[in-house]
């Protein structure tokens, strides 16, 4: 259950257009390899296993067979100015098992730079430079032997 309540409507009260419960789920790339039918989410700390299941089933119509959760504690570190030990917020991770026949692969969001891509970029830049030089020559073909700074 969310800690925020949908306010009970009182006669004459304003109609609530937007309601934001404090439940959210973020699909993350699993750190350890998972079977194709298991998906990892980071979710709000207040969510229980039942909340995760309901969230996915009621909003996105995704069948959940099983939900396992864990709370991850991030590393502690020194405060840069004061020097005392500080820690970021904990994160709750939910591992959602879908039926066997379902599968999900986390998309490759940022294309990694392959060798071909680098060569391609280089060729493109070279071609542009060559074209630019040809343009320059074309522009100045009537002004042979004139210095570059001399313009009308």
């Amino acid at each position: 259950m969310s800690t925020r309540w949908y306010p009970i409507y009182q006669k004459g009260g304003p109609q609530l257009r937007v309601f934001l419960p404090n439940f959210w789920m973020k699909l993350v790339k699993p750190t350890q390899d998972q079977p194709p039918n298991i998906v990892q989410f980071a979710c709000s700390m207040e969510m229980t296993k039942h909340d995760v299941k309901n969230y996915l089933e009621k909003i996105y119509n995704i069948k959940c067979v099983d939900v396992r959760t864990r709370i991850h504690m991030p590393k502690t570190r020194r405060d840069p100015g004061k020097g005392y030990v500080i820690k970021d917020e904990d994160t709750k991770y939910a591992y959602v098992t879908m039926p066997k026949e379902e599968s999900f692969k986390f998309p490759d969001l940022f294309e990694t730079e392959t060798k071909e891509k680098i060569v391609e970029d280089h060729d493109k830049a070279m071609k542009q430079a060559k074209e630019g030089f040809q343009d320059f020559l074309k522009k100045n073909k009537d002004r042979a032997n004139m210095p570059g700074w001399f313009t009308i």
Partner: protein
Amino acid sequence: MSLFRIKTSIPPRLFHCRCFATALPNDEEYTATPHYPPILDMSFEKKLERKKVAKHEEIKAVKTVEEKQIKLNMPRFYGFKSYMLNEDYCPYNNLGLAQHVTRTHLIVNNELPEYYKNIDVSGVALNLKSEIEEAIAVEIDGYKRENDFTNDDLTKVEMENLTSSLIVKQLNRIIKNEMSTSHPHMKNAQIDYEPRIESTWLAGGMDAPERVKSVRRGRPWTKHMEDDPVDRLMVFVGSPCMTVRSELPLPPIVSRDEAENAELEVPFFRLDPRAVGNKTEFRHIANTPGFWPGDPHKFGLLSYHNRGYLHNRKHYQDPQDDKEAVHRQAIIASFGWLQAQANFLGFNTYNDITYPLVTQTVITDGKVWSFYAYQLNTIVFHTMYVNENPKRNICWGTEELNLYDRVENGKLEGFNDQVLELLLKFYCNVPESRLGINLTPYLNHEEKVIADYADDDKRQWLEREYKFLVSNRPRFKLDYEVYSWEKIYKIDNKTRHMDKKLRPFELLQDPFKRTLDDRQPIYIPRKFRPHLPRHKGKYAKEYFP
């Protein structure tokens, strides 16, 4: 006392004088053809592999069953990290993992292998049918009357397990009574109710955890091995409602060649077992097949298992997966029991069995019955052998079969004779002696178990040590742990420079690498010591293998 007293150190010095010595040509030093030492691969992996093989040979050479088990446990004082395969807890989609870690090919059809077709039981079935029908009806109705099933403190699982084990006991009694005259092997069979069965083995081929990978990445000489698979110590823990044992093993169902048939596929499970919901624990290596070493009835014939835990899987809402869970239970229960028996015959997870072992498994709630026959061909498939070992274990199973449809007015309706016949076939499968095979090749001839040792002190010491390890009871002294405040203020952030460095992590020690014999032997008070100098005889003798 002699007249002349020569200092004792003088004569040896005289005789060792080189001036009296003559050089003796040593002909044995030279041979006609030169003998060179073998050329060994000196790469890091190969050196490590040779070290491991030497360890496995060391375990093989240990004399008795119990000492072998202690020897397996020697590397770790606090036990090993173990991946649990509980009989009564099956996470979703677990069959693939169970097959991989037991290297089992599963064949499901309603007729068990060819072998069982030659066993005729129609006569026995006819004799027993009415008696069995009555017994089941009485057990179901009678138990309900006797014990209040509406009682709140009994869960559904407990209720089902109770009735099924009662029915199993009755059926076994009836069948054994009938058959003990015609089948002598049943007369001599040993029966156990709810034995504790634990079995531990190494399974290889699964991906390394991130922690191991990062360690490998950090060392230049292991960097190239980063993605190599690592072994997992798998532990089966189960308690069948009844087992039947005999002095002789069951005959093998298929031949040795068939066991190496590459067409018998075994699914390869690459991931960490925790990815599908299996848990880990720190445990000592324990192999207990429900009896102690030295029991003459050391071969399993038949085991009955409950299936009440399926009620706990209702929330998965997948009946197909429940069926797979039963197959999984049969595979791990059969393999686990046979593996533990193999350990009592002197084999272990490093030294493979030299002949196949067979068992029969029944999973039932009294009404629904599943039958499985299992042939164990290999128990060695840790990472070194996971690809090289061509052998695989085979499990034949049936679907879930109903023994009867319903109970009406204290009578069973729609009794299925076929199911009864399948059960009787298991009882009529006669164990045989294996001619020309040494059943315990890796055990000593005279001293197979520690009870054979004549030395009282040694026997008692080994007995106490062995029983403590297999009990898996926690130690009296609490295990070592790093406290949270130490992790935060001493390890992750070095904020306490002035503290005295006394804890293991400050002294570059790893308490979890502590070996089993790294401890003080038992202290003997002075009054129990023989007359010796003060510093001698303080500690009792230890007999670590």
